[in-house]
């Protein structure tokens, strides 16, 4: 029975197919919202699915002078990392399928895998746009990773656990957005940086470096990277909601909360201008990291007093 449960969890629900479709749904909502903010119609509901099917069905061109194995495997790892991370988070407010003490750290690293793979994929090809994109993607990763980690540490400390389920249980009774507003902000903005959404889309700034690290990817590889990104969007939103917006609860309410968060994220995306890479790094280290650290210290001091 246990094996069957594992197979279902991995392939159908909440991992595997479900998370793929849910990720695409979130991507659609994101695109639709941005379109509406820009007074456009936006895509129809099946557009992300249609895009993925089309890309998957297309020929994948492997450039000469690249490591072909790496070229093919990297997108798979990226998607696998994103999918695996979904097993440890309370998707649509349900209990995570797997849970152990310290799963928060594992999840965070699984989520970073996508950026890492993107960077490697860019560095693997000889294309100049890819190289510049890879450099930028990795630079950006190093700038937001530390503040985000600090921001997510906050809930972990007050809940006194590294286990996602414990933290979200704690968050049910404590709306951490009120007690740790800076942490919430840093986490949301960090999520946007992770997903390379505007204004942090310098690594894939199309007017400068075409598609950044993924310029040489076409067909299947590109589809897998895109799917990975959609899944991460969903996982990231779930994580932030579970930690800061009242934890796991009624699935419908939980879903509504993630959607509200998505509206905010889409609004920020459509209203802000892209930052240059050095501006992004400056922003994170000068404000993001310091603020997160300040809040962290205040929290430790508070815990010490209490």
């Amino acid at each position: 029975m246990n094996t069957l449960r594992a197979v279902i969890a991995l392939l159908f629900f909440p991992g595997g197919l479900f998370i793929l479709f849910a990720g695409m749904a979130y991507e659609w909502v994101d695109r639709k919202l941005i379109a509406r903010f820009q007074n456009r119609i936006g895509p129809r509901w099946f557009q992300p699915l249609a895009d993925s099917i089309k890309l998957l069905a297309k020929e994948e061109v492997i450039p000469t002078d690249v490591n072909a194995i790496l070229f093919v495997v990297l997108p798979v790892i990226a998607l696998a990392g994103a999918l695996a991370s979904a097993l440890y988070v309370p998707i649509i407010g349900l209990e995570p399928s797997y849970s152990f003490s310290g799963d928060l750290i594992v999840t965070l690293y699984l989520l970073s895998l996508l950026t890492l793979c993107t960077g490697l994929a860019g560095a693997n090809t000889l294309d100049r746009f890819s190289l510049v994109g890879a450099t930028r993607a990795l630079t950006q990763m190093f700038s937001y990773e530390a503040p985000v980690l600090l921001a997510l540490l906050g809930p972990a400390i007050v809940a006194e656990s590294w286990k996602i389920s414990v933290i979200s249980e704690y968050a049910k009774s404590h709306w951490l957005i009120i007690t740790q507003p800076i942490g919430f902000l840093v986490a949301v903005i960090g999520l946007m940086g992770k997903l390379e959404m505007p204004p942090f889309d310098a690594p894939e700034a199309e007017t400068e470096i075409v598609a950044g690290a993924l310029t040489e990817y076409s067909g299947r590889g590109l589809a897998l990277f895109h799917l990975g990104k959609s899944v991460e969007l969903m996982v990231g939103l779930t994580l932030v909601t579970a930690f800061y917006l009242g934890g796991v609860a009624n699935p419908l309410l939980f879903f509504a909360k993630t959607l509200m968060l998505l509206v905010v994220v889409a609004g920020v995306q459509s209203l802000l201008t892209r930052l240059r890479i050095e501006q992004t790094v400056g922003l994170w280290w000068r404000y993001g990291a310091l603020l997160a650290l300040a809040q962290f210290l205040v929290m430790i001091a508070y815990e010490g007093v209490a």
Partner: protein
Amino acid sequence: MQSQQGNKFTIPIGPQHPALKEPEHFEFNVDGELVTGASVRLGYVHRGIEKGTENRSFVQSMYLLERVCGICSHVHATAFCLGVERLAEIEAPPRAQAIRVLVAELERIHSHMLWLGVGAHEAGFDTLFMYSWRDRETVLNLLEDITGNRINYSTNVLGGVKCDIDREQAAAIRQGLDFLEERTTHYLDVVTSDMMFLRRTRGVGVMTYDESQRLGAVGPTARASGVARDLRVDAAYAAYDKYPVNLVTETAGDLEARFVVRIKELFESFRVIRAVLDDLPEGDLTTRMPRRVKEGDTISRVEAPRGELFYYIKSNGTDTAERVKVRTPTLPNMASVLTLAVGHQLADMPMILVGIDPCFSCNDRMVSVKGTLDSQCWTWEQLRQYGIEYYR
């Protein structure tokens, strides 16, 4: 101008690149994210227009020249018409001249709003891009209503204009302008107060007054550096002496100043169009134009949305021009871009390039198609055959 030797890493931008919707090849040598050298290769859309005028009549040449540029087509036709009319010693009636000014200013609005969107898009601010292009539709619809075409209006004929403005159209234009004026005020606010956007424009790509003079920049690019250079003021053509334009200049010389100059010029355009509508002279639309034009040469200059447009027309006494030389405003401004590029961030390159409002097809006017096995030069018949085969 040419690329510096000992380059480290060359980033090609174009001929196919999402930043430039027109084929042009730039090479930027970069050191990390810093640009250390820049060079350009034009000609990807060279259509042989200058040569083409040598075996076409003046009437046919006008339409060919109008297609030098898709955005500022009217100014090309106007420059050519004014030049040929001067050679033929006729003058278009006042009403025709006023309508030329009217369409030229509507075209300037269309061009500047297009540029505003492109500039915002290059900076990664797609919302401004979408809104400015949405509002640009207003002016395109007006142009369609007046001239019959959305672009390449073909308003001019030698000796006058084809289309008239009736009362209904005038009312529609006024209504459209009111809407645009309100929106333009808003956009001026956006480009001067949006913090994130200013981070990408303020102090970027600065061209000082002296540099601008030395490099011979023209149009809004020069005016953003404080150079008072505008042919509508300096050498009023068509009916600009009757409907004077106020010069708009800024002194900062950076990208923000270029945005501000262009948006402020929009207000001037609104004012001029209203002045034309208020005081549109009555009379004929055309005068009779002789088919043969007297021998001689003339220089015709008009202020295109991008700057000074220069036409040299030489006639040999037949109905065909001996030589037509076109110098579009992008060419002198291109020199300024390549000089400015050095020392800037790679991320700023598209912005600086777009800052001059480049129009590459304007630069390339001379017929070649890429893609045959042995030659890039195709004859017209081959080209036609290729097109037929391709779509069969």
